[in-house]
């Protein structure tokens, strides 16, 4: 079971994406009990995103969540909890990263921290460059703005 949660978590990089998927899972949990005869994949049609639908269909095919609706609901509840417990890192950066940059940042952090991590990004142009990082109550500033401030406040070497 752990493997399936991990696979799905891999698709999520940012806090916004996490909130989006949590809302979708909540929606699926609501429709599970609607029609007894219809399969879960049919019930999801047009109601959830492609990624989640694909993920749950593959699980249904593999027989992980097929059969009882209670089993499906319990799986989704567990998935919800797993996703909510993912650690977050707050980054304050000067630019809005494109998908490629986001992927690179996410993978680098994952490699450095040795675990899956959710990015909570704040765009603040005053940072100029670099980043201000907040992780598990620890705060570090690696911004260009700070470097510039220090440079300006230092007396000139004559």
């Amino acid at each position, binding site marked *: 079971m752990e493997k399936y949660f991990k696979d799905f978590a891999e698709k999520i990089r940012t806090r916004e994406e996490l909130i989006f998927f949590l809302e979708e899972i909540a929606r699926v949990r609501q429709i599970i009990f609607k029609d007894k005869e219809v399969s879960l994949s049919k019930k999801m049609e047009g109601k959830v995103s492609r990624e989640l639908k694909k993920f749950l269909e593959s699980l249904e095919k593999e027989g992980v969540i097929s059969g009882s609706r209670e089993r499906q609901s319990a799986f989704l509840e567990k998935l919800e909890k797993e996703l909510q417990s993912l650690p977050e890192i707050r980054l304050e950066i000067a630019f809005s990263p494109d998908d490629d940059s986001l992927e690179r940042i996410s993978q680098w952090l994952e490699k450095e921290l040795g675990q899956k991590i959710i990015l909570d990004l704040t765009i603040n142009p005053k940072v100029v460059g670099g980043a201000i990082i*907040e992780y*598990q*109550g620890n*705060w570090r500033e690696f911004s260009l703005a700070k470097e510039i401030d220090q440079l300006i406040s230092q007396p000139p070497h004559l």
Partner: protein
Amino acid sequence: MSDFKSFLEKTGEIGRVVGLNHYLAYVSGLPALKLGEMVITENEERGLAHGLDKEMAEILMFDAGKLKVGDGVARTNNFFQIPVSQELLGRIINPLGQPIDGLGPISGEKKYLPIQREATGITQRVRVNKFLETGVMAVDLLVPIGYGQRELVIGDAKTGKTTFLLQTLANQAKKGVICVYTGIGKETSAIKAVEDYLKEMKVFDKTVMVIATSENPSTINYLSPFSGMTIAEYFRDKGKNVLIIFDDLTSHAKFYREISLLVKRVPGRSSYPSDIFHIQAALLERAANIKTPDNKEASITALPAAETLENDISGFIQTNLIAMTDGHIFFDINNFRKGKLPAINAFLSVSRVGNQTKEPLDQDLAGWIRRKLVEYQRVMEIAQFGGELPLATQKLLDLGKKLEILFNQSPKTIIPRALQLLLFGLLLSGFWEDKPQNMMKIEIDTILKNYKEAFPEAEKEMEGIKNLEELKNFAEEIIPKVKEILYRPL
């Protein structure tokens, strides 16, 4: 750079507000936060770490309503501190050390001291050995207080507790003692009345007023006595004798109860938290007579006030306070209703260490007065049945009434020890024996008004008197002088 940012850089730790409940903030993060540590928010508001959980901390905020969920909070790595300096004298501040008298910032060099400090250890403490004159005759003679003592002033609302406390403050401030008045949950009008009294008595510049009004959040009110005590310790450590008044600690307990219920502590008796005794005892324990490094003595005398309801001194907080002080002065509502002012009930008041500071003469006099008051009470009970009373009983009744007249004292009158002895000397010598009570009242007032001019050397002369007989003889000697004041043409 803002304070928040500089603390953030210094500690490298940040917390985020995840929940709010009035002035209580739940903050996640801040991994190394300590209990009692001060925190600062990104809006530059201050708070105090009150409880630590595995996931989050409970922070008591001092400005309710400004904080939002998601706001950043930084540690300061300091326990809650307030700025103290000599310049605090004659100022009114809030428990955060900020001036609230509209006279601008407090200038001069400041020292930052934590408000929660351990009490002085036993090796540094010395015996309470010097008499503290309150200027209120009933107290000075029957329930004497010493420098470094903790004496509870207990009684119903509006029975004259604050008046007595202010009389004591004024008398002591005039003698050079530094005074700290700590108001807890008082109305602004009551604070103004205190300020006006101190200004009228010309002692405002020798007093620090630490004020938390009923408009302030409970957190501010809770801090008030601790801030006051820290200021008192600052002056005590400079070798001064300090008098601190807590007006009042029953309100303080109620504010702490409110906070504790808000943070979901298990409520105990009367819904008070289980640590209420410890909180207030640890505060009062900081008052003492101590030995300074240069082998002199300096003291903090604490006079906490406590309110009762219909003379019931058996309430939870009231009995706690009685247990943690060195005695109590009980203001009896029944005495107040009978017009006895101050409404002190001498029989239910006690001073555990004050008597050891008194001269043998004062002790003899106190013993005599107590005896006569007990006898007077006993015959009063018999007298109410009517019938003709023997002459001795009639005399005793008259003496009892005259004692009551002597102890009646207006709020603005301060009677020094020498004058107290002189008046009782006159009573002992029979000066007022056959005079009507109204006449006695007028004569006492006249003596009080002209005492300094007629007996400039009274204090010195009193020093030589060792027992009641000598006091009586002294009074007989000065009767012509007293008559001179009383019967001189206008």
